[in-house]
């Protein structure tokens, strides 16, 4: 069960990032025809990001303390001290932006350049932050893996 939670939270994070990328591309080509589709993608992204938050939070509170102790004894303590610490707080930026994006896409991107610019900025930052958080997660994971590898000195 814990492995399912471990792999589900970055999966939902990736899907939320892809939904934001979808909105970004729709906003670049905003027309009357893709208005509803953009809004649906934004709403899906918000739901997916909340799932990533809840599942990631469950993992972080329930299982991460043991993993943290392991990482700190291994050769890559910075995997926790820098990457995990930054990731766990940076995550709230794409979370808030993902909750905001459907409010923006409820507007008319094809007719209102302000709405379109805001949709581009919000979705773009969700993608950038989402990729950063996913990358940091991979480094945290590698920090734990190295700590369990005898030849690594951990």
């Amino acid at each position, binding site marked *: 069960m814990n492995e399912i939670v471990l792999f589900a939270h970055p999966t939902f994070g990736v899907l939320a990032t892809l939904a934001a990328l979808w909105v970004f591309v729709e906003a670049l080509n905003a027309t009357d025809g893709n208005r509803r589709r953009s809004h649906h993608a934004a709403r899906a992204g918000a739901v997916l990001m909340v799932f990533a938050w809840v599942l990631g939070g469950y993992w972080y509170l329930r299982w991460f303390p043991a993993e943290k102790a392991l990482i700190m004894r291994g050769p890559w303590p910075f995997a926790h001290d*820098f990457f995990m610490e930054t990731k766990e707080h940076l995550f709230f930026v794409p979370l808030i932006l993902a909750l905001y994006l459907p409010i923006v896409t409820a507007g008319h991107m094809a007719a209102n350049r302000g709405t379109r610019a805001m949709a581009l900025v919000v979705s773009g930052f969700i993608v950038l932050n989402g990729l950063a958080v996913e990358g940091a997660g991979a480094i945290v994971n590698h920090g734990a893996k190295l700590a369990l590898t005898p030849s690594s000195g951990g």
Partner: protein
Amino acid sequence: MTPLAPTGESQLSPAASAFGISAIVTILFSTLLAIAQDISPVVHKVLEHLAGHHWTAHGLLDVVLFYLLGMVLWRGGVRRDGMQLAVALSLAATAGGGALALWFLSM
């Protein structure tokens, strides 16, 4: 890329304006709270007391602030130019992410 319509309206809807301002405030608040709980054991304790764990309280406070402030501003009928608010949001997101990275790099 289709160019942004130069003559199109750029005022955001009241909801997008209100929650856009709220998102900016929340991102900056979240960044400051992350740093404050590292600096101050009192802030850390208060957050733990609120929700059992500092991270849980931090996330819940962010979401509550975002919706609460957004609702208040929305009821107030605030409207902003989308281009200007998009620039402000970009600056807030960049400053927030940058500050967090620099803070934890210096720790």
